[in-house]
């Protein structure tokens, strides 16, 4: 079934619906086999999909991005998760967020959801903390 030709055709289908912003998907009650395969394809597995020219725009890594990297690594160093769980959780963000968000915000959201899922923090705590940080940064400006 997964002949190279079949897979190449599947890749075209995946690209036709990713990111989902481009294609209105409106809860159909029936769906073709080809489209099912394309939609259930694991998001990060992009090798071989057609795409445009390489965008060589440089990105100067922001302090929050570097700190996010360090936070994710510290969480793994201290046994709260491993890097593969982070990658799985990036996939779990879904196609639209995976491709539309800046690279390190995927890491950050994966870490946030993990901390909530495992009960290390509660949504209330996080919302309160974000408000505290927001107030602090506003008053520092």
């Amino acid at each position: 079934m997964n002949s190279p030709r079949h897979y190449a055709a599947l890749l075209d289908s995946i690209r036709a619906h990713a990111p989902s912003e481009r294609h209105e998907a409106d809860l159909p009650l029936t769906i073709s086999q080809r489209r099912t395969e394309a939609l259930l394809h694991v998001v990060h597995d992009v090798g071989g999909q057609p795409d445009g020219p390489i965008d060589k725009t440089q990105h100067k890594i922001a302090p929050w991005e570097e700190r996010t990297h360090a936070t994710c690594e510290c969480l793994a160093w201290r046994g709260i998760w491993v890097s593969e769980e982070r990658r799985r959780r990036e996939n779990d963000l879904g196609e639209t967020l995976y491709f539309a968000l800046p690279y390190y915000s995927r890491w950050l959201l994966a870490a946030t959801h993990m901390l909530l899922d495992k009960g290390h923090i509660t949504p209330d705590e996080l919302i309160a903390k974000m408000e505290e940080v927001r107030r602090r940064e506003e008053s520092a400006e």
Partner: protein
Amino acid sequence: MNRKFKIGDKVTVRDVPSLFHTRTQGYTRGHTGEIVGLRPEWVIPEDEAWGRYEGRREPFYMVRFKQRELWPDDGGAEIDMLETEFSESWLEPQFSEVPGTRFADARAGDNSVSDSHEHEDAHAPIEEAETSEFDILETAIRELCISKGLFSADDHRRFMEWYDHIGPMGGSRVVARAWADPQYKTRLLADSIAACKEVGVDWMQPTGQGTPSDFTWLVVCENTPQLHNVIVCTLCSCYPRPLLGPSPAWYERPSYRRRIVRWPRQVLAEFGLIVPPDTEVRVHDSNQKTRYMVLPMRPSGTDGWSEKRLTSIVTRDTMIGVAVPRIDWTTSSAPPGATRSA
């Protein structure tokens, strides 16, 4: 049961950031209605949804809104209403001021970054990003983790200091030494991690056992006249970070990940590298624990160069395999009109 509100009270639905699962609809936030029904104490859905099945119990209320209050610009009839339920913590006594404006302001900033695809020249622009929401989330997460003892502030500081020490110059030293010393090259190809340490790149840092994402299994791929190597990670952006520092943005973006495994010669041509037809192009897709670095060929015209001078032409891209070293193309200057990605 202690209730804060009674039938007939005017209440406003709290307008707090909605990053997470809740049953409180966005269209009700910040709006004022009247309590028209009392419900028992139930476990709030915001706890149930995250696995706290025996979580906080709160009294629930049925609240009636005027359609015109919810949707003021849609011409609804004055007598039309909408009713829906809330747990107590979502409600507060009616606001006297216009509610919700503060959060609306905070959300107004557009976090999108440039998605232009037309930059390919030698002076590729630097992406400007407004990321204040991520900034705030990052600070909140880090401070919560530290306050709960998941890791220490010192752990975090050690990682941040480590970043200051990694970069492509580590790889440049490895390549220059391999060019200058054949015995070193033999050791490098046999035990890459140990050979890196000889020139001061320690894959065990900063934890003593390496980093969680980079692992400690390195394969150095030697280019020859018959073989050109290039590295990618189609599934994320695995990269020999301890040796080359953070990966370039194009390495993380999907187009490179998608195309290099299927159309490698075309992609290399976009980087200005035409591989001769009788040279094999070998793509290394780092999908598991192994990390790869390309050992490029030493260009002619470098006889008698010192090891230090040799490092100057070993750019990051030559160690990824999307470029080859040129004597007129150094880590600090490119020839006029050259296509270059930094």
